[in-house]
């Protein structure tokens, strides 16, 4: 049984995550990677800077691993989130799930990423091709900045 959340600064290693959940009882392994992409809301992105309330983020990641694992009967579930400056194509989050059957693996993986995006105190500042930077929130894709006119908090 491996249910664990991690905060890391080194690059996420897919092979390591797969190995973490691999056991002879598991017939299905699912690996999700969230990757820095070159566009957001129509703006050219050159990189993303991730920061966190680390102690709480770790606690929430662990809680999500435990909750989702418990509710779906998934024993092997590793969530890893990276902090720091990430370039294009680099993974900010990796979620590995393994289970005897694929249905549970897909359900657990999806539930983990949705919960993570909803409640784990991690923030990102996107860097754009025009040299500007902006704090960005998940939810509706609206700006998370503090300029006048900022929307209500998502939760």
């Amino acid at each position, binding site marked *: 049984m491996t249910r664990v959340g991690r905060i890391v600064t080194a690059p996420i290693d897919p092979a390591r995550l797969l190995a973490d959940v691999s056991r002879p009882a598991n017939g299905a392994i699912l690996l999700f990677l*969230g990757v820095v992409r070159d566009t957001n809301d129509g703006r050219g992105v050159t990189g993303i800077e*991730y*920061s*966190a*309330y680390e*102690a*709480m*983020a770790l*606690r929430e990641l662990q809680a999500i691993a435990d909750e989702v694992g418990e509710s779906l009967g998934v024993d092997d579930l590793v969530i890893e*989130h990276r902090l720091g400056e990430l370039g294009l194509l680099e993974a*900010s*989050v990796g979620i590995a799930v393994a289970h005897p059957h694929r249905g549970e693996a897909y359900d657990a993986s999806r539930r983990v*990423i949705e919960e*993570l*995006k*909803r*409640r*784990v*105190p*991690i*923030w*990102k*500042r996107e860097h754009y091709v025009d040299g500007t930077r902006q*704090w*960005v*929130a*998940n*939810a509706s894709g609206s700006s*998370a*900045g*503090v*300029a*006048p006119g*900022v*929307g*209500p*908090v*998502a*939760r």
Partner: protein
Amino acid sequence: MHPMSVTVLLFASYADALGAPSLSVELPAGATVADVLSAVRRRPGAERLPPRPLVAVNQRYASPASPVGPGDEVALIPPVAGG
């Protein structure tokens, strides 16, 4: 029952708004999260916070009525963006 001093952690856009990663606020005994927010609102830059920012007490999301005591770890949580 003495007034107490509580440290409030700030992150990301909220740290930018208030110009610091944390600040110290004076609270009456028996204070709540709502009292913390009122105290934070008197600081310069706080007008750039949303009307009801999320607050965590001891690394758990808390409601405005949650009590805050000396030694508690209080944090304002900007809209999250993990993943």
